[in-house]
């Protein structure tokens, strides 16, 4: 069912962060080299530029109201695991370590993290952290939290990310030891993402309704929740907070479903900041007097996958004809108002650059790949060469909450009509879309969007190796697994040799570009807008947004 109700921001972010985690999930077993920061921040807008300096500034801000797309169903991460919720939860609960946008980690509630062997992680906790209810942080709280997020039996949505965790024990006054069932180079990062430490005593007392307005988890974060309503979450300072105080005394996260209403709210001064959902509206946001927009490339790929095992897309000419028939430049304007980039290959450059000799080398490689610029003559020619020269009929689904997919399908429908190809657009809600992806019930043409949490092309390996029909949660939507790519794929997922991995990545991307099982489309950016009188000390990256630390960068001025 597709309705306007949830059209909007929530699912964009849902897709973003969900699939970010998805990619980090599939990078298990691979070495995680931190690459250069994904998307270096860039500020743009009509307001004054970002103020210099980092850390907490002296001046506090009485209260800010930030608009997000939709309200969280639950403030318990195991019940609702997505960007909206993460952003909100991170304001009052904290992880053991923080990850930056470049993949590096910094200590937080844990002052020291040691990995004595491949299957053991030892966290040493800070001794000055206090929960908002006054209880001091104890190892028991951390143990409970890790058990909570890894508890698959209880249906924790986070559990699959940290399934390698075998046991958690308190091993000292300030020490917690996590034992893994097998070596897993991603689990530490994943834990730092999902293990938002809660007060165990409170949580145990509210086992059944934890996360509801009646039992909002108690954390050690800079804020505490004073009201969890259907339209907003209100937070005030945690008086016991151990770290540097963020600028705002109070934060309200309002959930405004459409950019329109959010814009009107900012115009009237009701909100001071917003995460832009629909990039086409960025110009309107900027037009709000005194506002500043902050944009950053996301590590997100949006593309179409074509089922290479069934007619008509088992014919490479048909696939190429499809690729030629999409007016990607035009759609970039229509779907994003120009506030996004074309995706040169299946992965954005930020994802493959870490294994390349240099970012320039990566770029020049991508430039050399066969491109499929919008050209109906070529499309016609390709189709004429195929076994379906007279055309065919196909139903292409789109995700109703994601305009780019709808507009792409409509564009294909229009452009392919003269070639005798009848396209029937079929709306899917993102819920249906996700269900179909995980249930492996995708159709022959399928809109996809996924992103990498860590800048590493490890996901490419799975894209070409997974037997699509048998692996739930796999990514080989095109059902395309050429024999000669199996070895490079193996190299990509298991080797530590950067050069070999670069070669493998090139091989796979070249094959994808030639065979076109996937048609790369767009790489979006995320956009934060601050109202007049507010700036960021430093443009927050995607991880800062997800972890809520961006609040630390907020300045009045």
């Amino acid at each position, binding site marked *: *069912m597709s*309705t306007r109700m949830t059209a909007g921001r929530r699912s964009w972010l849902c897709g973003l962060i969900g699939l970010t985690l998805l990619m980090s999930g599939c990078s298990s077993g691979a070495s995680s080299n931190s690459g250069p920061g994904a998307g270096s921040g860039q500020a743009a807008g009509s307001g004054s530029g970002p103020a210099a300096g980092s850390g907490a500034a002296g001046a506090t801000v009485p209260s800010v109201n930030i608009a997000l797309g939709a309200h969280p169903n639950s403030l318990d991460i195991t019940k609702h695991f997505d960007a909206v919720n993460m952003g909100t939860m991170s304001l009052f609960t904290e992880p053991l370590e923080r990850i930056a946008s470049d993949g590096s980690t910094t200590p937080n509630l844990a002052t020291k993290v040691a990995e004595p062997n491949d299957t053991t992680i030892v966290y040493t906790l800070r001794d000055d952290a206090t929960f908002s209810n006054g209880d001091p942080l104890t190892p028991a709280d951390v143990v409970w939290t890790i058990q909570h997020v890894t508890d698959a039996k209880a249906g924790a949505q986070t559990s699959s990310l940290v399934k390698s965790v075998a046991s958690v024990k308190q091993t000292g006054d300030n020490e917690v030891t996590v034992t893994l069932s097998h070596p897993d180079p991603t689990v530490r990062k994943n834990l730092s993402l999902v293990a938002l430490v809660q007060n165990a005593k409170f949580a145990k007392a509210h086992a059944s309704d934890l996360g509801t307005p009646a039992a909002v988890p108690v954390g050690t974060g800079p804020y505490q929740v004073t009201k969890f309503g259907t339209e907003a979450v209100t937070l005030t300072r945690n008086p016991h907070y151990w770290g540097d105080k963020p600028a705002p005394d109070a934060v309200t996260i309002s959930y405004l479903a459409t950019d329109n209403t959010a814009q009107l709210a900012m115009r009237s001064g009701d909100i001071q900041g917003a995460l832009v959902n629909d990039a*086409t*509206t960025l110009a309107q946001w900027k037009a709000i007097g005194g506002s500043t927009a902050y944009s950053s490339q996301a590590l997100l790929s949006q593309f179409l996958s074509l089922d290479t095992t069934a007619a008509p897309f088992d014919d490479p000419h048909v696939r190429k004809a499809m690729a030629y028939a999409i007016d990607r430049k035009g759609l970039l*304007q229509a779907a994003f108002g120009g506030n996004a980039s074309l995706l040169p290959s299946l992965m954005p450059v930020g994802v493959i650059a870490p294994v390349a000799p240099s970012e320039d080398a990566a770029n020049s490689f991508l430039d050399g790949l066969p491109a499929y610029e919008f050209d109906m003559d070529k499309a016609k020619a390709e189709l004429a060469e195929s076994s379906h020269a007279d055309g065919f009929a196909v139903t292409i689904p789109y995700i109703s909450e994601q305009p780019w997919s709808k507009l792409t*399908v409509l564009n294909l429908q229009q452009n392919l009509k003269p070639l005798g190809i009848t396209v029937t657009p*079929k709306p899917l809600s993102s819920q249906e879309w996700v269900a179909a992806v995980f249930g492996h019930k995708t159709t022959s043409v399928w809109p996809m969007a996924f992103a990498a949490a860590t800048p590493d092309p490890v996901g490419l390996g799975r894209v070409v190796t997974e037997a699509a029909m048998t692996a739930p949660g796999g990514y080989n939507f095109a059902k395309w697994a050429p024999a000669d790519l199996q070895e490079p794929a193996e190299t990509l997922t298991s080797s530590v040799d950067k050069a070999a991995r670069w070669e493998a990545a090139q091989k796979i991307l070249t094959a994808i570009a030639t065979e076109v099982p996937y048609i790369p489309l767009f790489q979006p950016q995320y956009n934060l807008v601050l109202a007049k009188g507010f700036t960021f000390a430093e443009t927050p990256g995607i991880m800062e947004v997800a972890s809520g630390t961006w609040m630390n960068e907020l300045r009045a001025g």
Partner: protein
Amino acid sequence: MTAETALVVAPARTPRRPSVLIMLAFTVLLIVAVLAVFGQWLAPQDPTVQDPLLSVTPPGDGHLLGTDQLGRDVFSLIIAAARSAIVGPVCVALGCVLIGGTLGMVGAYFGGVADVAVNRFADLVYALPALLIAIVVIGVVDGGYWLTAAILIFLSTPYQIRLCRSVTMVQVRLPYVDAARTIGLTSRRTLFRHILPNILPTVVATLLLDFVAALIGYSALAYLGLGVQAGQPDWGAMLAEGQSFITVNPWLSLAPAIMLIATASSVTLVGDWLYDRLSSKAVSR
């Protein structure tokens, strides 16, 4: 919302000669009808031609009402969408009147278990927020344009049944029906030759009101993203799309809103007028 309430409360007085207003309503209907049939040839530009680089522009050169998100001409889309606005509701209205009319007449004439069953069904549907049911059902079964028509017929037929049943009931009690029975006419002949012509005026008037109800239902569903295929020009869907761009090109949402209101009001006006005329004719024997 429903044909019946509208009819029951319709003023049955003072036969009006077509006023300026009625002529205006007829004109609007004529225009919409012409657009529905010949729209694709009348549109100044091909409504399907996309120019994504010209995404959402206000009225300006070459685009009387600006463009939509894919750079299509809004004016031409409005014209092309007349078909979607008319065809489905016409089918719903016809289906409703045919099915509901037959069931209502037969129920009123024969009575019995079938009548009671149909009536209970009508009771149930009366007690339901019809549009809400349509939203749930169409959303859940992933219905297209024609399935939507079927569901709307299903949900609005009870009103038609009730109406036809009550007007037939009035006729059945009249001695001319008894007379037809006493001379030994078959039930079918009595129903269709004697009763039908006498309730036909009401039925025709309800047809128009059913159309309005269906138009409103269809467009509401389309506004919610249901029932109309993506890419098919449709006023309700355009309005929904345009709402996000109301500050950039208000016409993207205002134009379909105005068309919907004008069309629905005109049909209601004509239906009202027709009902007045027909019923006052019936009164002045």
